[in-house]
């Protein structure tokens, strides 16, 4: 008889486990349930299963839908694959806030023709496999991806995006996104790292006309290497000698690599310096170069290298850096005088969030998605493929001065964004709270070298195999 209770026990345990799984399932109406229905995201759908066919039959809205758009509940769901715990989390957290604020204001004003936009955010931690995993999770819930953080990460989901016919906005400025062989399902925005380097370095030479030498250093990966590929191209075009090349040297978590780059730059005696990395590493490299007695050069780096904390009130390098540095930006800084910037300021101040530059990036991404959704609605096709097609046919997306216009039709070379913003560090404005430490000096700037550059493929290839 000893046998029986044990049997019973095991079945009970199994039952408990099943119940536990089922319980978790039931509580989770917004995600898993939606995945099962494959069409809707609301709890209402669970009680009375509405199929896509049913929604289509409604005469009021002759809009085709499949995933992520629920006409009955009046919602559109957009996915964000964000790095919220990895190395770029400081930036991406603010960018996501930009998304949140923008869509909240759109929804308040009536949404997309009455449809409210909601976000499904997932944290990739900047790990490729997590990124792929979360893509898999979201693809059956969202109509498109509002951003996808990281280049190798976006490359990793690119073939799936194409197979599933889903649109994504890459949150990286890799030049490869302008390549038609890669970007069938991607709508890039902003000036790519490579072109940015051409713009900025040529601009530096207008500020220091006698300069003949340049030192370059960067973080590894598409970010630093794409950027420095552009730097090398423009140096060649302008006859600058690259006296130190520390491309891929700087690793944020490794102090010795900062010293290595700083020693290299200081030892080269260059007149121009291009460092593409993260802000803290930039501060370390700049500070150690100063400590080694290197001064008098003009410094710049790709947009994400800059952070206003570099010239904050307690930053020892604030004064020299404010003299030496030119800030490269994909969008106009917080305090810039444009309707687009005013909108961002209004949104952020109304929410009581602190002033920062990076909200703009979120707003820009959301704006592109907004245009795409409107176009898809017009076309009567709000399926994943419909939104993709709509985005790919956008002739012009304007940002009211917040960023240069984007177009997604025509030849790759014509579509390539070459315009950007340049600012100078603004010590007083930052201390006084009137700006985020940047004073705009050039809007929609492009240098002759960048203008003449013929794009046929990425400056730095992310090899597939």
């Amino acid at each position, binding site marked *: 008889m000893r046998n029986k209770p044990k049997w019973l026990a095991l079945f009970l345990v199994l039952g408990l486990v099943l119940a536990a799984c089922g319980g978790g399932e039931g509580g989770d109406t917004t995600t898993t349930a939606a995945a099962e229905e494959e069409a809707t995201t609301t709890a209402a759908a669970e009680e009375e299963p509405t199929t896509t066919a049913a929604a289509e039959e409604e005469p009021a809205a002759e809009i085709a839908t499949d995933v992520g758009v629920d006409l009955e509940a009046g919602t559109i769901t957009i996915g964000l694959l964000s790095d919220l715990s990895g*190395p770029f*989390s*400081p*930036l991406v*957290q*603010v960018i996501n806030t930009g998304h949140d604020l923008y869509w909240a204001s759109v929804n308040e004003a009536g949404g997309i023709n009455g449809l409210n936009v909601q976000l499904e955010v997932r944290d990739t931690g900047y790990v490729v496999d997590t990124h792929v995993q979360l893509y898999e999770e979201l693809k059956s819930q969202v109509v498109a991806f509002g951003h996808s953080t990281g280049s190798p990460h976006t490359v990793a989901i690119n073939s799936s995006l194409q197979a599933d016919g889903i649109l994504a906005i890459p949150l990286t400025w890799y030049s490869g996104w302008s390549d038609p062989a890669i970007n069938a399902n991607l709508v890039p925005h902003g000036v790519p790292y490579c072109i940015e380097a051409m713009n900025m370095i040529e601009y530096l030479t207008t500020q220091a006309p006698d300069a003949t030498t340049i030192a370059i250093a960067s973080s*590894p990966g598409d970010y630093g290497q794409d950027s420095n590929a552009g730097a090398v191209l423009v140096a060649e075009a302008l006859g600058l000698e690259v006296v130190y090349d520390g491309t*891929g*040297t700087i*690793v*944020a*978590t*490794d*102090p*010795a*690599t*900062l*010293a*290595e780059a700083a*020693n290299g730059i200081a030892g080269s005696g260059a007149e121009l310096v291009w460092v593409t990395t993260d*802000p*803290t*590493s930039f*501060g*370390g490299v*700049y*500070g*150690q170069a*100063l*400590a*080694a*007695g290197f001064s008098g050069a003009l410094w710049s780096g790709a947009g994400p290298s800059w*952070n*206003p*904390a*570099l010239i*904050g*009130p*307690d*930053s*020892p*390098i604030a004064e*020299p850096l404010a003299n030496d540095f030119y800030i490269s930006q994909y969008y106009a800084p917080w305090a810039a005088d444009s309707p687009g910037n005013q909108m961002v300021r209004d949104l952020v101040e109304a929410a009581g969030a602190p002033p*920062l530059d990076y909200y703009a990036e979120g707003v820009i991404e959301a704006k592109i998605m907004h245009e795409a959704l409107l176009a898809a609605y017009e076309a009567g096709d709000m399926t994943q493929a419909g939104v993709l097609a709509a985005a790919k046919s956008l002739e012009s997306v304007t940002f009211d001065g917040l960023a240069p216009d984007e177009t997604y039709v025509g030849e790759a070379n014509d579509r390539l964004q070459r315009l950007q913003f340049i600012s100078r560090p603004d010590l007083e404005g930052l201390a006084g709270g009137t700006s985020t430490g940047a004073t705009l000096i050039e809007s929609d700037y492009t240098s002759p070298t960048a203008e003449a550059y013929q794009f046929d493929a990425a400056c730095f290839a992310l090899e597939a195999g």
Partner: protein
Amino acid sequence: MTSGLVVLAQATADGNAFAQMIVDGISFGAIYALLAMGFVIIFKSTSVINFAHGALTGLGAFLIAAFATVLDFPGRYLTFLPEWAQWTVNVLTALVAAALFGILLERVFLRPMVGEALFAVAIVTLGVDIVVRTITNDWIGTQPRPLGAPWGLAVVDLGWVRIAWSEVIQILVTIILLGAIAFFLRSRTGVAMRATAFDQETARAQGVNVGRIFSVAWAIAAFLAGVAGLFYSIFPRRATGVDQATAFIAFRAFPAVIIGGLDSIPGAVVGGFAVGIAESAANTYLTFDFLGNGFPGIVGYLLMMVVLLIRPYGLLGTPEIRRV
């Protein structure tokens, strides 16, 4: 490759470069020595391998940033003092807070593990590291937090070698702390600590309050980690202050501990400076292209492997006697 050889030839011909290399190495080695010392103090008195040392470093640096620049506490009430003195008082307050936090960690997470397998306890500290580091990172937030050190960009230029004032002070502070700890180990509590390290039960039988010794050890280690975090986060290392990557510095100090010997405080100092100078030397001389990027970063670990092949218990560590 050729460019690397040219640099090598130039550098060896240049005595100044050698001197600069040594100075840089000592300056960085001091940070490693401070970290390694705290690590060894914990190990010696509590037999815990503390993988949470990085978290303590990041937390210490963050607390200094918070007390010295954000709160300006208690400096704001001490207006009669010059500014640098106010800053120093703020930093000391922050370090005391860090030490208290160290005590708290030990009480909450490690005291229940007394008597468990050493390996299990070490893994507990891995868990503590994840928790503390994550919460610290949340507090640090999106931008680096400056520490407001009063030395600014001041640099001493002796002609043949340049060194930042902050580095001079850092080396002085390290020497003072080394002396203080050597002195402390000869005090009553220090002797009790050494007795505990030697044999917990016997120490207890002799009336040593072992629990208090554990607290003191963690307090000292957290204090030293905070000092290391301070000097790592100011000009010229990371001029902008403490950020979410600061805590990783502790992984560079582990080889210093092993090179010196897990249970030797002088060994920690020797190991710290050895790793600092080895990294600096690699940075100056090993600039061959085929070594790629980040080679200096693993020099410490390579050195560690070599030392372990020769002396499996480190340069100054106690050989493990295996008894049946």
